[in-house]
Structure formats: C-alpha cells, structure tokens
C-alpha cells in the first residue's frame, strides 16, 4: 500500500507559498535581517516571514497561523475543499515554540504580582498545533503534535506514514511549523551556535546558524483513496527512518552513527539502496558540529558524487518547521527535477569531505532523501519518490 503526497504548501522568509519559495531559491535571494518581531539586545540575523496580516486567526498564535497558511495551500494543491467530510483525516504536526507557554509578558506579570490575565494561558491551551488544526477542519482521525526539536517535522511526517499504513485513517495533514520567538533566540545564543552573519552550511568558515520561522505541510493519502477521488499519483512518501544518538543533550554524535542508522532505515523502508537516490536535502544548519557530522555520513552512505544541499540559507533554521518545509522542497524539487544551490557555501575546507551543489542544478531520478538532526540526538530521514 503506497502513500501519495497529494498536496504541498509552505511559507517561510523565502516566500508566502511554494512558488515564491522556489523563486527565491532560484534567484539566490536571502531575506535575512535583524529581529523585528520582539524586543531584544542580541544582533544575530534572522529570517522572519514579513507582512503577515495583523489580525491573525487564533488571536495571534503566530505558529498556528503559519501552519494554517501552508495547510490551505496544500489543500488547494491536493484538490481538497473544506469541510473534509467523507474522509477519516488525521493531523500530525511538529513544533517546538507552540508547545511551550513562553509568553514573557504574561510570566513577567505573574512573577511580579502573583497573578496575571490568563489570556496567554487560554491561547496556549487552545493552541496545541495538531489539535487546533484538527478542530478547525473538523478532522475525525488521530491527531498529535510532535515535539522532537529540530526533527519534529520529519518525525511528524514519518508518524503520518505509519498511521496510513496501519489503516487508522485515510489521509493525514503532516509537517511542521514554528514562529520566531525570543526564548529559543536567547537559548541558541547562549549555546554559542548563532552566527553573527548569514549562515554558511558546510562552508569551511561557517560560524553557526540563523534562526528562521515558517511552516511546511504535505497532504498524505492512501493511494487507493487518492485514485478513487480522481487523483493521478505523481509523488509518494516511500520511506521513513529514525534513530537516537545516545550521546549528548546538545552536541551531535561525532561518528554520526545515529544519522547513518536513520538514513539506512529510511532507504530500507523504501525498498531502495543508496545509489537510487538522486539528491539529499540535508539538515545543514551551518554549525561547526552538525555540518561536519552530516557531510561525513552523507559521503559514507551515498558516495562522493551525491548531490546535496541545505536550504537553511534561504529559510533559516525553522526548528519544528524545518522537517515540514524541507519535505515540501524535496517533493517539489523531485517533481520539477531541479535542486537549488546550497546558499552560503563557498568552499569546503578539510573538515567537510564532499561539497554541496553550488549552482542550481538539474537532476534526473526518482528518489530523494531529506534529513533532520535534532537537539538531544534524534535523527530522522524520509524518502520521497517520483513516478
């Protein structure tokens, strides 16, 4: 039983929809700047989604609004209309920011006075990302939010795949979303892994990551359901793998065994081998450690000629949104048979065994892999297949 990717939607600093995102990448446009969304004293560049309408749905839960925007695009792409009656629809989304009550104004008032207006709390309780979306679209299938840090989106898509294979629903809205927020901004700053300049994934002079925000959603359907409603399958989600580093709370495992295991499991789940993969959409954050480990693993598994790239130069690291956005990009790239240059990369140096692509590149092939490495040591990979 195969699982079709019937719709794709994405929003990030690179654009409001998939087409805008792809155009930004095609033209090498990087929309970084200083933080405008909240007050702060740090000067690390970030990639914000600009010009969102002021009055956002759900009274300003930005993460939910980003997810909903991407979801709406994906519904249209999948030729689905609201309400989704007649289908048993699940929702599985990844996030980090939206899973926390991190409203600083609320907490600041509470700790000063011992009481505070509960609006922020109520917003939080209505804002479990998957639950909120499921409620809005009246989905009747399973719903759960994945909080697996940077691999949340990829893991959410993987869980959706498992749900569909086990037959507990017909369709899943899957992916991830995260807004830019002062808490992780300060947190990543304190870890010393934010770059003061534009990030340069896999480059020898890379100095860290840039935070971003956004959402990436894929609509996944059982193939028979999709065909029955008149669809012609073009893209499939054919495999998923996940494995833990068992190493450290923040640093990735130096030998990359966890990522290697996750990728191999995804390939095996897909029924393919490494040589069948025509490109890899890497996690590529721009930190010294991630890029070193990841490029070594990619080289080991796929050989020195594998075409790979990171899109975080265009979106920033969108945390829970990364896996969703990158799945969307991977599917789109496979469909359109081209991949973008790995923004920010100039030269690899000694630490990085193979270079990512440096120009927009045409590809031909049927399979692509997207990888995610999370804080805390979880590694996840998916395989996308084109007919």
């Amino acid at each position, binding site marked *: 039983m195969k699982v079709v990717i019937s719709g794709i939607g994405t929003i990030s600093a690179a654009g409001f929809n998939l087409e805008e995102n792809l155009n930004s990448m095609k033209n090498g446009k990087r929309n970084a700047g200083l933080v405008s969304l909240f007050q702060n004293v740090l000067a690390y560049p970030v990639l914000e989604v600009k010009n969102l309408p002021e009055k956002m749905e759900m009274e300003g839960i930005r993460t939910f609004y980003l997810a909903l925007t991407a979801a709406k695009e994906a519904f249209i792409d999948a030729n689905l209309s609201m309400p989704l009656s007649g289908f048993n629809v699940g929702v599985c989304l990844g996030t980090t920011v939206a899973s926390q009550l991190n409203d600083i104004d609320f907490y600041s008032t509470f700790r000063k006075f011992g009481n505070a207006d509960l609006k922020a709390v109520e917003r939080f309780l209505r804002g479990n990302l998957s639950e909120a979306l499921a409620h809005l679209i009246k989905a009747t299938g399973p719903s759960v939010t994945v909080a697996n840090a940077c691999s949340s989106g990829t893991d959410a898509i993987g869980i959706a795949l498992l749900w569909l294979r086990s037959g507990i629903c017909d369709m899943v809205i899957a992916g991830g979303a995260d807004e830019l927020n002062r808490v992780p901004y300060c947190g990543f700053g304190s*870890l010393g892994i934010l770059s003061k300049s534009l990030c340069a994934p896999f480059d020898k002079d890379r100095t860290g990551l840039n935070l971003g925000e956004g959402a990436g959603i894929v609509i996944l359907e059982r193939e028979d359901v999709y065909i029955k409603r008149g669809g012609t399958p073009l893209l499939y989600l054919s495999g998923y793998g996940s494995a833990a580093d068992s190493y450290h*709370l923040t640093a990735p495992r130096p030998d990359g065994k966890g990522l290697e295991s996750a990728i191999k499991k995804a390939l095996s789940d897909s029924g393919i081998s490494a040589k069948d993969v025509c490109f890899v959409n890497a996690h590529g954050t721009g930190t010294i450690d991630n890029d070193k480990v990841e490029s070594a693993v990619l080289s080991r598994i796929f050989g020195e000629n594998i075409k790979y790239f990171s899109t975080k130069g265009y979106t920033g690291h969108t945390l829970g949104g990364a896996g969703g956005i990158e799945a969307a990009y991977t599917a789109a790239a496979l469909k359109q048979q081209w991949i973008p240059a790995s923004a920010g990369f100039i030269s690899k140096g000694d630490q990085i065994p193979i270079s990512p692509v440096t120009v927009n590149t045409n590809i031909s092939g049927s399979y692509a892999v997207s990888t995610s490495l999370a804080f805390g040591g979880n590694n996840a990979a998916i395989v996308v297949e084109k007919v």
Partner: protein
Amino acid sequence: MEEVNKMNLDDIRKLLKELLIESLSLEDIEPDDIGDDEILFGEGLGLDSLDAVEIVVLLQRNFGLEVKDMNQGKEIFYSINTLAKYVYENTRT
C-alpha cells in the same frame, strides 16, 4: 562584582569552585575536592561542551567578563588555576 577587583588569586579560586559546583550541578563535590591544577574538561572533572558555554555565562554574570570565542575559552578553561588567572588579570581595575 565590585569586590572582585580586591580579591586575591586564592579567594578567586575558591569562589570559582563554588560557582562551578552550583551552576554545573556537580553533585557530591565540595570545593576542596577540585584540585587547582586538575583538568576540567574531558578527563579530570569530566566537563563537556555544554558546561563550557555555561561557564561562559558564569563569567559574564559574575565578573562581567566576555569570552570572545571558544578557542580562547579552551585555554582559559583548562584548570581552576588558568580560570582564576584569567579572572584575576581581567578584573584589576
């Protein structure tokens, strides 16, 4: 912080040991258990990369000192002695 510039090396070593134990949650360790020359990272006390960035914050908060990059940090954080020397030299005004 005003008093740091009046502290001698010995007092700074003692203060650093107390601060490390507290901020790095080093359980069942007393300040006297940490040797002045004991290697802090890897072997010895067995601290790791997360502890290193925590010490960076510790230095900022308690002494107003900024460690510009972690290569510099590697030398300063070698032992209590090197750490104390760094604090002493940079807080004399």
